[in-house]
């Protein structure tokens, strides 16, 4: 992978002055209060923070699923804030991958079709060699013909990961990707995600509240009250737990 050599020199995702407010008057909540953040290419970053800290909102905005009130978000040289809904949609299916907490596979089609769905939506052919490689790394080779309800939770999440990786997106967003998995399967999925940054140069941004999950990341960003309040490089379970505890005080 050529990207391995340029790891720290450029950014996959950059955001400047992001603000987002929900509700009116008395129900008004400032979810993001001017967030500036950059995510380096080929890095696995975790965003953490207590409930209501704005971490999910930040991720939704960065991923183009939700629109921020002001600021700018640049992915692959394009400012998301200036795109129409259709352009955003194209952006999502070409530049962005998702792994959700509750797997979110389309129940009517089998695993192979689910993995290929974003490419099919774009009307593009897939690279069979790349497909074999991703499926092989994720160990899904003998499960491709199964419908989602015929797969275990861990297998479903691995299908979701394969779906996210297959388009070679600029960035993959994970929203509590291990929240619905037991600790062993969760560890498996996290190892796969980390492997994809190391071996494929994939950029990954993950929201989680689980210190164990966060310890797999290269870096942890800490959020509180709609703002970034800290960074932890090379996190361990202990250092993350300490940081979270200090945030709560």
């Amino acid at each position, binding site marked *: 992978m050529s990207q391995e050599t340029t790891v720290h020199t450029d950014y996959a995702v950059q955001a400047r002055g992001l603000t987002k407010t929900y509700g009116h008057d008395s129900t008004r909540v400032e979810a993001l209060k001017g967030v500036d953040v950059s995510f380096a290419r080929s890095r696995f970053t975790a965003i953490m923070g207590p409930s209501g800290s704005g971490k999910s909102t930040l991720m*939704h905005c960065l*991923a183009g*699923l*939700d629109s921020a009130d002001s600021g700018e978000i640049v992915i692959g040289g394009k400012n998301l804030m200036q795109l129409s*809904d*259709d352009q955003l*949609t*194209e952006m*999502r*299916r*070409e530049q962005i991958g*998702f792994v*959700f907490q509750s797997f*979110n596979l*389309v*129940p*009517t*089609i089998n695993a192979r079709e689910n993995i290929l*769905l*974003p490419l*099919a*939506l*774009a*009307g593009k052919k897939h690279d069979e060699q790349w497909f074999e490689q991703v499926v092989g790394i994720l160990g899904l080779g003998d499960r491709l013909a199964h*419908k*989602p*309800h015929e797969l275990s939770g861990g297998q479903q999440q691995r299908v979701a990961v394969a*779906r996210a990786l297959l388009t070679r997106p600029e960035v993959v967003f994970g929203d509590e990707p291990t929240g619905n998995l037991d600790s062993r399967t969760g560890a498996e999925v996290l190892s796969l995600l980390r492997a994809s940054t190391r071996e494929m140069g994939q950029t990954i941004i993950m929201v989680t509240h689980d210190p164990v999950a966060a310890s797999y990341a290269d870096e942890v960003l800490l959020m509180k009250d709609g703002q970034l309040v800290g960074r932890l490089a090379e996190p361990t379970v202990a250092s993350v737990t300490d940081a979270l505890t200090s945030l709560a005080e």
Partner: protein
Amino acid sequence: MLHVALANIKVYARRYIAAILAVAIGTAFLGASLAVDTSTRATLKNSVGEYYKTADLVAFRDWKSSAYGEDGDQPLTMDVLEAVRALPEVKTAYGSSSYAVNLRTDNDMYNAWLIPISPEHRYSGVNLIEGRAPMSESEATIDQKYAEQTGLGIGDQVAIEGAGEEGGLQEVRIVGLSAATNDPFKSAMMQLGVSEGSWEFLLGEGADLDEIMVNGTGDTAQTRSALQQLLGDQSVRSATVLTADEKVIADVANLTNGTEQLTMVLLIFALVALVVTGLVVMNTFAVVIAQRTRELALLRTLGAKRKQIRSSVLTEALLIGIVASAIGVAAAVGLMAGLVKLLQLMVPEMSYATLGVDWKVVAIPLLIGILMTVLAAWLPARRAMKLAPLAALRPFDAASVKNRSGRIRIVFGALLAIAGSAGLVAGALIESLPVAFLGGLLSFPGILMLASLFVPSTVYGIGKLFAGNKVAGKLAALNSVRNPGRTTATATALLIGVTLVSMIMVGGQSAKTSLNQGISEEYPIDLMVQTGVLDDSEVTRLAAIDGIAAVAPYEVTQAMINLDDGELDDSYLLVVDPQVLATVIQDESAIPQDGELVFTNWSYTESETAQVAGHDLQVKVSTASYLSNMITQNTARDLALPTDDLNGGAMLRLDDAVSANQLSDIVERIAEVLDVESASIFGGAMESAMFSQIIDVLLMIVSGLLAVAVLIALIGVANTLSLSVLERTRENALLRALGLKKKQLRSMLAVEAVLIGGVAALLGLVLGTIYGLFGAYSTLAQIGQVRFDIPWLQLALVIGVSIVAALLASLAPSRRAARLSPVEGLATE
């Protein structure tokens, strides 16, 4: 559990809108059908009963009585009326009669009903609006409507010619005008009121009154028995005494046989609409319960008994049934009130039209609407009842819904379909419509029961065929069959309506073509006019009329025809020029050559030769039964048969493209040219136009009635789709997140709707065409040769309308689905 049901309705109100709409339309149809009947009765009561309005009792001779007209059965005379008046129980009494007399003025003569009027006895039911009642034998009243028509008025002197052997003649002066009557028995002629003395004088002693109307002094029952006693004493043996209400009901019953049949027909269509409504309701509840699986299972976990779950669901159905049926009945009554008002305004002669609404019009649709809603919810409620408490804890996977079609239903449906199809075929073979109809009646529900076997697979197959490589199309095809039971019920609702519509279209078209074929065989001439012999200029002017292709004049002669198997005295023979005739006639067998007699088959012969005026002619039998026998001009000359200028006419052929409207214009023009009444022009084209028009009108009415069922079914399509969209909120949001554009999402849902709607229409069309062809054959085979004719254009229109309507039905749900942001959608449980 009532509060749970109420809370559910409140929360899920929007999901029930379509079901409520469907039930309301269904019950409104039923209510309106019943109201047509009651309003017709009320209207007739208002007109027929006019005469009795002020009376308590009506005495009349009942012609259904065995004593009627027998020896010793005395008539209701003026003497009897006097005796009735003398009874202490009687306050006033008057008679009515239906003798027609002639009323002469200096220049004219009119027919009139002669009515005896007694000023002391409430004017005999006649309502005077100007002038006064006749006080002596030289005075009379007429009604306002005929006063206007004839120009007669108060002060005019007229003569009345009596009726019967003893009837006299009387000079009278008009002294008053009465209100025009609405009684359909009496409104066709002038109402001529005279004093009772005049009445008896004009008609002779012993003239018979139709009825004696009585107002009693006290108790009606007492008056009635006194009246019966008296009539018995007077030997009016066939006399019956009814209250005014009873008499009106009896009269109306005589008049309303026809409207009862109309009501029956309307009720059949209402039934179809209700069956379709039932399917829509069933689907609604099935979906709503599927969506609520977790919630219901949670209730079970918390200690709700199975029966409580079921009754909670049924309570919801009951409440919805009540609300929807009430809306439907109110709409029906409103609609009928509007129609009656419109009739009163638009048709002045129908100003007495009356809205009739009795308890039945309200109660029956209300009851049936509620019952049907609860019944339709029964199956889904049972499914809800069977939920295990554990289901609350399992993640609900929408894809894993499998409806196992009940084996009993499949077996029963197959039996019905096979037996019914056999009946259909048998009906066609023995040419009996009732047998074929019964076959259709059995096989259609049978096929509907089997619908789960072929509807989802057809939908999926066609979906895959059209989707190609488009992801949205493929997903739509998959989505449309992910719940086969739901798809089947939705499609079936539409299939019913489309089957019936296309059945009558195909049947009607085949009937029209077959009848036209029959007409052109028996009546090979488009138009024929019988007048004198035409001169050359008349022929030229006829040929010049737009739409006329050819003119063949003919002359007429008379001769004795001797055949081997009979003879015809003074038989009319048309004398024609065969070359000219060939330009107007469509049937070669009806053209005589020299030395031939064309014998049309209005009478029968097997004879090969005929002797006409002493000569032998070759007999040529033609199927044209409406024409007279024909010979050529040369034959007539050879046989020295005389023709005269007074007897003759022309046969005409029309251009092929002449429409029914143009035809009446052409007939007018012909009448002008020849200076004859247009009614004296006849021919195959006129007959065809008449039949075609009758069939077209029938087709239009029936299609209109069935359109209600189709409308309800389309509401069902929108309903199913919008409920499915709610159910798939999360999944659709996911697709949006993964890169499905808004437009693609909308088109995915549109394709799903079009698939269900289009396939239902297609299957309905095929079924309806088969039924239509069998029906037409069974009906028409007895009459003559059957020509099958499929109205491709109309059928294509049905498919087109179904697809467009399905597209429209997908608009609201798909807009809602596209509006939801991916984040919101993914957040829903």
